[in-house]
């Protein structure tokens, strides 16, 4: 921390790329194409109250044809050696379609946690290969509201076997393997615990209809992934990567809300004219667009910092979360309001986006908690005593 009255060091800006590369745009087009064909909002809505809320067939296609699960994993571990920049583009598209799939839990959180463990250890490498190939789906067993920098979770303890209950674990019902933070006699550790005997997954009735959470009770032995020397850092790395990539998902959610609402107000006539011709509505939509311009820049910066492992990554991710969370919620709330009555119906998909946006606001740290983290990071301390 710098002394009071001095300005925090300005991060080196050289090389930061806030645009989308041609490769990233091509990837976006492939994902968007697939989702438009296989998982339009109406398809997603039709699925939410069935026994299969996640589209496992779609997830297989995303993994097998577009390498979504292999993207963050280096080639020598069976992956394709992409980066958080490409992951963020995929997150945008999955957010724009509120795709019900274990992307965040498996491809982002569990994978990032494993990558921050010792990948030369056979157990870690094997699990990463299995995740990258799509053979295994995993998740990180922490409450989805957990934020990097929180105290290491102590819900699960180790005494021979792992015992405890972790609440609101994302994508738990899809997981074959849980990456479980646990505290033992030696201190904090990460374990891999396979689903099945000794693991009880109790689905929670979730606010978000398209991203499921469940309470997970463990009474089983696990395989040690990281001991006290590494577990805290690995968990923080996963939560930071998750929060940074989540900002791009929020951008995608907001983009759908804006696009759909703009289309609607052009078509909806009241008082003999399109409601989009009323200045009160035009200005509100201009503000949503304006928010998207800044949110896109903040999300891209976070993705770039994660991809390049820049010194400024903690600030970049906190800014992206503190900014993109309320932008997505605002865009979704405006979508409901500016659709009028139809926006309030179950039949219209706007509520899927509102529910996702509001849950994302809590996921991996609320905006207020990210602002509190920034206070320390950029030397803007609160009141003295």
């Amino acid at each position, binding site marked *: 921390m710098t002394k*009071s009255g001095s*300005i925090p060091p300005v991060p080196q800006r050289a090389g930061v790329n*806030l645009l989308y590369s041609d490769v990233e745009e091509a990837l976006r087009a492939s994902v968007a194409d697939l989702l438009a064909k296989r998982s339009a909002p109406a398809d997603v809505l039709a699925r939410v109250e069935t026994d299969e809320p996640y589209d496992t067939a779609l997830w297989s296609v995303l993994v097998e044809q577009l390498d979504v699960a292999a993207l963050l994993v280096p080639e020598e571990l069976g992956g394709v050696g992409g980066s958080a920049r490409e992951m963020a583009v995929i997150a945008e598209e999955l957010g724009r379609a509120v795709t019900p799939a274990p992307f965040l839990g498996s491809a982002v959180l569990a994978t990032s946690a494993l990558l921050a463990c010792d990948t030369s250890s056979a157990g870690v490498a094997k699990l990463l290969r299995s995740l990258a190939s799509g053979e295994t789906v995993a998740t990180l067993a922490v409450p989805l509201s957990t934020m990097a920098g929180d105290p290491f979770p102590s819900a699960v303890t180790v005494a021979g076997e792992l015992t405890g209950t972790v609440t609101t674990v994302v994508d738990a019902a899809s997981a074959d393997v849980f990456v479980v933070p646990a505290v033992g006699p030696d201190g904090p550790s990460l374990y891999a615990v396979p689903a099945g005997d000794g693991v009880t997954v109790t689905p929670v009735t979730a606010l978000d209809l398209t991203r499921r959470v469940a309470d997970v009770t463990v009474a089983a032995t696990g395989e040690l992934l990281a001991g006290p020397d590494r577990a805290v850092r690995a968990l923080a790395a996963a939560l930071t990567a998750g929060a940074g990539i989540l900002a791009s998902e929020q951008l995608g959610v907001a983009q759908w809300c804006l696009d759909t609402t703009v289309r609607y107000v052009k078509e909806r006539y009241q008082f003999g004219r*399109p409601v989009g011709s009323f200045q009160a509505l035009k200005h509100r939509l201009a503000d949503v667009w304006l928010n998207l311009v800044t949110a896109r820049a903040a999300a891209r910066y976070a993705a770039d910092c994660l991809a390049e492992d820049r010194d400024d990554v903690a600030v970049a991710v906190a800014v992206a979360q503190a900014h993109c969370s309320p932008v997505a919620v605002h865009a979704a709330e405006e979508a409901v309001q500016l659709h009028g009555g139809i926006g309030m119906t179950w039949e219209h998909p706007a509520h899927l986006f509102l529910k996702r946006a509001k849950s994302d606001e809590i996921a991996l740290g609320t905006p207020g908690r990210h602002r509190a983290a920034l206070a320390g990071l950029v030397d*803007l301390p609160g009141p003295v005593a």
Partner: protein
Amino acid sequence: MTETLDAADLKAMVADLLATHDPATTDRLEFLRARFDAGLAWVHFPVGLGGLGAPRSLQAVVERELAAAGAPNNEPRRIGIGLGMAAPTILRFGTEEQKSRFLRPLWTGEEVWCQLFSEPGAGSDQAAAGTRAVRDGDEWVVNGQKVWTSTAHTAKWAIMLARTDPDVPKHQGLSYFVCDMTAPGVEVRPLRQITGEAEFNEVFLTDVRLPDSLRLGEVGQGWQVAQTTLMNERVAIGGGPTPRESGMVGVVAADWRARPELRTHELHDRLLRLWVAAEATRLAGARLSQQLAVGAPGPEGSAMKLSFARLSQELSGLGVEFRGEDGLRYDDWTMRRPELVDFTGRDAGYRYLRARGNSIEGGTSEILRNIIAERVLGLPTEARVDKDMPWKDMPR
């Protein structure tokens, strides 16, 4: 020759200029004139008019080399209207004679320019301007009132919109002139603002006689000519990448760090919200610059001014509140005519009051939202009841 010009060529040309005009011993104005004549003023301008017909991006090379050699510059902030608005308009619409007469002293700063567009009755609706120009032989006789004119009291020339035909709809009856600010009948009065100072002027035009050779573009073409001027104003506002905590957020953050005893929880959260918004806006500006650099400008430019205005207003408001009892004080109400405006200068009260103008000047935030809604989002346009109405019949 110009097609193959690269950075190395420009470095060599700068070296030639420096060899023949040592900045240490050459008079400032003489140096600037020599720089103009060497084509190193604005390299993307044509040969003979201060440029080389080279890519605009190469200008940075020239500026870097000259700055390193300690050469004087033309103090661009002092002549912003000339450089940013008058020059591109003259280049596009001026006659050869006008270009060679005006551009050199404009660039060197020997002749300061101002802008006579806004009127008391034509603010957001600039095309409704009512200042009349009536033809009298080879001259035009101008009568009317202009307002919000910065540097009018130091300017030699003005770019001016005037109505030459009141019987046609507003956009068709305007012509564009260069007005001699020293001509008889031009009266400049300071316009005092809510801050106490007068950074702008009112300009009263009474039977001002201008030769027809001072007209830019055709008679009745004034609105199209003005679009060039206004487009360049928006480009100028776009700016380049800035470091973190530039501008108002930096001023308020520094105050925050320096005065721990004044901090409250409520102000702390507000400050952090604004800090985040300022950082996101800064990043959006950096992203816009990167888009421009690869030749893919987006519509994000108009977003930047809206964000900037909101931030500078909220931050400067917080800045006053943060001072507590000291926020009751104001540094000085004395009427002054500052040559340069610094939104982040002076004291918290001044910054707060001056920031109110940020959402009015250069296009109000309401008009900018209309522009975004219509041109970016494609929403229906506002009703234009005066579109086909003769100007003289418009309700006013």
